[in-house]
C-alpha cells in the first residue's frame, strides 16, 4: 500500500512522463507505411547475394569468379581482393570481412555478386569456384581448449585488441577474472559446500525481419547505406574501417528496424553492398534469406557454468566460485566484450563476501556469437537461481528467506569496484511474491503442477550519446538523435522532452537521423538508451531553457536562476504574473542571439544492476515431458516508468524470449554444420506457447536516469529459464541442469528418477 501511494505521488508530479501513450510511430506501423530496409526504394537497384563458406574450417586455395562474371546480367563480383588487407573487429581485430586465408565457420563470407535479378544473382553465386583444403573443425569450447586442438586463429597473439578481451593463445580468445575476498579459504569456514555444473545452448535472436540493406555509391565518392541495424554510428565506423575510407565518407541512414535483440548490432551485409555498388556503379540491395540469417547470424553463446557455493548454518552464501566457459564461435565480435562483463554481473542479485568469477571465451568453428538481449544474463541466472533452490532443498531451507538474507543491498560495492546505486532487490522480490500470491495457493496447484521463483539482475550502463533540440518560432521543437528507435525510443524521448520543456506532446517531434545529420550516439541496445540518450535529451532541454531564461532577463527584470518554463511562458518562480511568452522571446532572439538550439551529451556511465523477480506456474505431462506454462508473473525494478505501456511490453516480450530459451530454442551444429537453420526446425514460441503475463512495476527513482528512469529491456529475459526450471522441479521433483528443457530431456530425467537414479 505504501508503495502504491509512493508510486502515485511520483506520477502526479509529471504531465507527460509516466503516462501510457501509444508509440509515436504507431500509425505507420499499423498501416504498412513504415519503411523497413527492404522497403527502401532506390531507382536502378541491383540484387546482391553473398557466397558463404560451406565448410566449418578450411584453407582457401583459390577463388575463381570468372564464370560468374561472364553470366549476362551480372554487374559486379567482389572478394577479399577488393578490400584493404586489414583485419577488423570491435573487440579483437580477428576478422577479414571477406575471408582471405581461411574460412572459419559455415556461413563465413567468401564473395558477393550484384546482378539485375534475384535469379541471376543466385546463379552467379553458384558459379563462383572456390577450392578449399579442409581442416578439422573445433566443434565446441572444450574441444577448443584441449591440447592438440586445431588452431582457428594462428596469429591470435599478434592481433590488435581494442576491447576488454584478454587473448591467451591457442583457441582461448579471452580469460577474465574478478575476485572479492578469499573464496578458496572461505569454503573451509562453511557448513556445507555445493558443486554443480549447468549448461546452456546457442539461441538465435530470430528478429522477424532478416538483415537487409541498400547501398549507394555517390558521384562525390561517398557511400549512402540504408540499413536495419541497431546503431547507425557504430555501423558507420565499422563499414568505414572495412572499406578503408574516413568515417565522414560513409552515411548510414537508419531504416525502421524489425527487431534486433542484439543481433543487429554488428555489421553484416553492408560492406558487401557498398563495395558492389562502387564496382557496379549502381545501387545494390542485399536481403539475407532466413537460412543465411541463421548461419551468418550472431546468436547467444552456449555457456558451461561450474558453480561452487559454500553456505553457513545461518543461511548465508559465504563463498562462491563461478567458472564460465563460453563457446564463442569463429570471431570475437560482441562476445569479446561479454567475457569481461560476465565477471561483473555474475555475482547476481546477491551479496557474497568471498567470490571469484572466471570466464574463458573459446574460439570454435561456428557462427560468431555476440549480444543477444542481456548477453550472458539468462545463462548465468539459470545456474545461480537453479542452484539457490537446489541448496535450499538439500538444506531444508525456505527459498524466500534464503534470498532475503543474501540479497544485494543498494550502494553495494560490486566486483568491479564500483558502487551499485539505486538497487532494489528485496522490493522487487516482495512485489513479485505479492503479485503471484506465491505461497498462497502453491499447495493447491494440482498434480504435476509446480510454481517456480527466480530473482535476477541485469547490469545496465550508459554509453556516450548526444542530442540536439531545435526550438521553432512557434515554440514547438524538433529533437534530433542518432539512436535507432528499437523499442519505442522516440516515444520515450518525446515524453522526456515534453516534460522538460512543458510543451504538449504533439509539439515535439523526435527523429533518429542519418550519421551526417545526427550527433554521435551509441547502439540501441543493452537497455542503456535511457541512461545515455535519455539523459542527453534531458540536458539538451536544459540547454534550451538556459538560453530562453537569458533572453528573458531584461524583460522580467529577474536573474535567470529564478525563472521557470511553464505552459509556453518563461516566468519568475512563485510570481506567475511576471511572465513572458516563449514565442516573444524567440522572435526577439532573431535580432539578438540567433536561432535557439540546445545540445546535450552524456559520456559512458558505469553499469549497475536492475532487478527482476519472476514466478512461473507450469504443468508437466510426465508421459511426454511436455511443459505447459500456465501462469507467469513478473516484477521489475524500473526506477520510474516513462511509459508504463511500453515498459510492460518490454517485459512481455522478454519473458516470451526467455520461455523459448528455457523450453524449446536451440541452434545446433553437428561437426561444424548447422542443423536447423530455419523456422521449420528452429521453433520460437508461438501465441499458443506463451500465457498472458502479469506484471508489476517497482517504481523507486534511480539516481542515474532522467526522471529516475532505468533501462528496462534486458532484465525481463534474465530470470525466465531459472523460474521455469524451478517450477518443473516443484511439479515433478526433477532438476534439469541443461537448457533447453525439451520434452525428450525431461522425459528421460523423469524416467531416471523413477528408476531411482535421478535428482
Amino acid at each position, binding site marked *: 500500500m505504501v508503495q502504491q501511494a509512493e508510486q502515485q505521488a511520483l506520477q502526479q508530479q509529471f504531465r507527460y512522463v509516466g503516462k*501510457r501513450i*501509444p*508509440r509515436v*510511430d*504507431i*500509425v*505507420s*506501423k*499499423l*498501416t*504498412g*507505411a*513504415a*519503411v*523497413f530496409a*527492404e*522497403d527502401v526504394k532506390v531507382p536502378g537497384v541491383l540484387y546482391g547475394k553473398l557466397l558463404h563458406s560451406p565448410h566449418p574450417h578450411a584453407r582457401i586455395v583459390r577463388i575463381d569468379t570468372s564464370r560468374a562474371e561472364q553470366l549476362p546480367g551480372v554487374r559486379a563480383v567482389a572478394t577479399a581482393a577488393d578490400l584493404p588487407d586489414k583485419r577488423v573487429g570491435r573487440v579483437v581485430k580477428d576478422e577479414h570481412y571477406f575471408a582471405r586465408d581461411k574460412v572459419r565457420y559455415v556461413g563465413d563470407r567468401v564473395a558477393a555478386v550484384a546482378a539485375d535479378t534475384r535469379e541471376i544473382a543466385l546463379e552467379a553465386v553458384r558459379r563462383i569456384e572456390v577450392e578449399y583444403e579442409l581442416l578439422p573443425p573445433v566443434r565446441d569450447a572444450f574441444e577448443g581448449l584441449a591440447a592438440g586442438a586445431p588452431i582457428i586463429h594462428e596469429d591470435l597473439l599478434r592481433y590488435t585488441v581494442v576491447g576488454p578481451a584478454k587473448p591467451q593463445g591457442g583457441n582461448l580468445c579471452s580469460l577474465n577474472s574478478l575476485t572479492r575476498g578469499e573464496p578458496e579459504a572461505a569454503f573451509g569456514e562453511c557448513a556445507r559446500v555445493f558443486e554443480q555444473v549447468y549448461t546452456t545452448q546457442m539461441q538465435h*535472436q*530470430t*528478429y*522477424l*525481419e*532478416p538483415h537487409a540493406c541498400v547501398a549507394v555509391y555517390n558521384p562525390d565518392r561517398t557511400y549512402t547505406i540504408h540499413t536495419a541495424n541497431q546503431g547507425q554510428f557504430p555501423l558507420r565506423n565499422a563499414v568505414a574501417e572495412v572499406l578503408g575510407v574516413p568515417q565522414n565518407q560513409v552515411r548510414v541512414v537508419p531504416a*525502421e*528496424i*524489425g*527487431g534486433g*535483440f542484439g543481433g543487429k548490432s554488428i555489421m553484416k551485409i553492408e560492406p558487401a553492398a557498398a563495395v558492389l555498388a562502387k564496382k557496379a556503379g549502381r545501387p545494390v540491395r542485399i*536481403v539475407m*534469406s*532466413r537460412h543465411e540469417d541463421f548461419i551468418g547470424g550472431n546468436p547467444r553463446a552456449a555457456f558451461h557454468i561450474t558453480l561452487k557455493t559454500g553456505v553457513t548454518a545461518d543461511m548465508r552464501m559465504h563463498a562462491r566460485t563461478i567458472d564460465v566457459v563460453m563457446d564463442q564461435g569463429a570471431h570475437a565480435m560482441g562476445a569479446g566484450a561479454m567475457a569481461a562483463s560476465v565477471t561483473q554481473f555474475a555475482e547476481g542479485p546477491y551479496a557474497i563476501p568471498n567470490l571469484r568469477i572466471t570466464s574463458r571465451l573459446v574460439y570454435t568453428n561456428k557462427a560468431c556469437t555476440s549480444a543477444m538481449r542481456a548477453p550472458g544474463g539468462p545463462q548465468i541466472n539459470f545456474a545461480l537461481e537453479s542452484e539457490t533452490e537446489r541448496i535450499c532443498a538439500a538444506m531444508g531451507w525456505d527459498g524466500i528467506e534464503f534470498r532475503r538474507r543474501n540479497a544485494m543491498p543498494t550502494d553495494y560495492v560490486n566486483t568491479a569496484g564500483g558502487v551499485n546505486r539505486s538497487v532494489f532487490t528485496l522490493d522487487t522480490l516482495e512485489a513479485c511474491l505479492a503479485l503471484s500470491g506465491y505461497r498462497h495457493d502453491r499447495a493447491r496447484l494440482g498434480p504435476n503442477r509446480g510454481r517456480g521463483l527466480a530473482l535476477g539482475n541485469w547490469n545496465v550502463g550508459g554509453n556516450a550519446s548526444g542530442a540536439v533540440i531545435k526550438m521553432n518560432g512557434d515554440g514547438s521543437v524538433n529533437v534530433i538523435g542518432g539512436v535507432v528507435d*528499437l*523499442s*519505442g525510443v522516440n516515444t520515450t524521448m518525446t515524453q522526456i522532452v515534453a516534460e522538460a520543456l512543458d510543451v504538449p506532446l504533439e509539439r515535439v517531434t523526435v527523429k533518429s537521423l542519418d550519421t551526417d545529420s545526427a550527433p554521435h550516439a551509441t547502439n540501441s541496445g543493452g537497455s542503456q538508451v535511457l541512461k545515455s540518450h535519455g539523459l542527453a535529451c534531458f540536458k539538451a532541454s536544459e540547454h534550451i531553457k538556459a538560453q530562453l531564461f537569458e533572453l528573458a532577463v531584461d524583460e522580467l527584470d529577474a536573474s535567470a536562476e529564478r525563472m521557470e518554463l511553464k505552459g509556453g511562458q518563461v516566468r519568475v518562480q512563485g510570481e506567475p504574473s511576471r511572465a513572458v511568452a516563449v514565442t516573444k522571446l524567440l522572435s526577439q532572439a532573431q535580432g539578438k542571439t540567433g536561432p535557439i538550439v540546445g545540445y546535450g551529451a552524456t559520456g559512458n556511465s558505469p553499469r549497475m544492476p536492475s532487478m527482476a523477480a519472476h514466478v512461473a506456474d507450469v504443468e508437466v505431462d510426465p508421459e511426454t515431458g511436455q511443459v505447459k506454462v500456465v501462469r507467469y508473473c513478473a516484477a521489475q525494478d524500473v526506477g520510474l516508468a516513462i511509459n508504463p*505501456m*511500453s515498459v*510492460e*511490453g518490454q517485459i*512481455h*516480450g*522478454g*519473458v*516470451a*524470449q526467455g520461455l523459448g530459451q528455457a523450453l524449446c530454442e536451440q541452434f545446433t551444429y553437428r561437426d561444424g554444420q548447422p542443423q536447423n537453420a*530455419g*523456422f*521449420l526446425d528452429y521453433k*520460437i514460441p*508461438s*501465441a*499458443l506457447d*506463451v500465457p*498472458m*503475463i502479469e506484471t508489476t512495476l517497482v517504481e523507486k527513482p534511480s539516481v542515474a536516469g532522467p526522471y529516475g528512469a532505468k533501462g528496462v529491456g534486458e532484465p525481463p529475459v534474465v530470470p525466465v529459464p531459472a523460474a521455469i526450471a524451478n517450477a518443473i522441479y516443484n511439479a515433478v521433483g526433477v532438476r534439469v541442469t541443461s537448457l533447453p528443457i525439451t520434452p525428450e530431456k525431461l522425459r528421460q530425467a523423469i524416467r531416471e528418477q523413477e528408476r531411482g537414479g535421478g535428482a
Partner: protein
Amino acid sequence: MKIPLRVTVNGVPREDLVEARTSLLTYLREQCDLTGAKRACEEGECGCCSVLLDGTQVTACLVFAIEAQGRHVTTVEGLSEPQLLNALQQAFAENGASQCGFCIPGMLMSATTLLERNGSPSEAEIRRAISGNLCRCTGYDRIVAAIGAAAAQRRNAKG
C-alpha cells in the same frame, strides 16, 4: 514466359504480366509497390507475408501470383483509408500491441479473418487464429488483448 494476370488489389482492378514462378508476395512488393506484407522466411512458417485472398488469410510467400487470377487481394494498405486506422488497428494502437511492427501487417490479416468468422472469440480461439503468425517482440500478450478488445467493440457497436 510472362503470363497476364487480372486481379483486384485493395479494391483496384489491375492487369499485369507476371512470371509463372513469381510469388504473390513478390508481385505485391515489387510490381504493385505494396510493401506492407513482409518477407521474413519465404517458407510459410512466420505469417509476416499474410494477405487476404478473397477475404481469407493466406501466406503470400507460398501462393503464386497467378493463383490470384480473377480474385480479390487485400493487403494491410487496404485495411483502412490512408493515414487512418480501422477499429482493429485502433485497438492495436491503444493496447500497445505493436512493437517493431514487422509482424503486425500479418497479424492484422489473421485477426481480420478471425473476426469475420467469430464475433466473440475466446482467448484460446484468438491464440489459435494467430498461431501461424510469429512475433518476437510482444510475447503476444497485448496482441491477444487488442483482438479481444476489437471484438468486444464490434459487438457493442452492433448493440
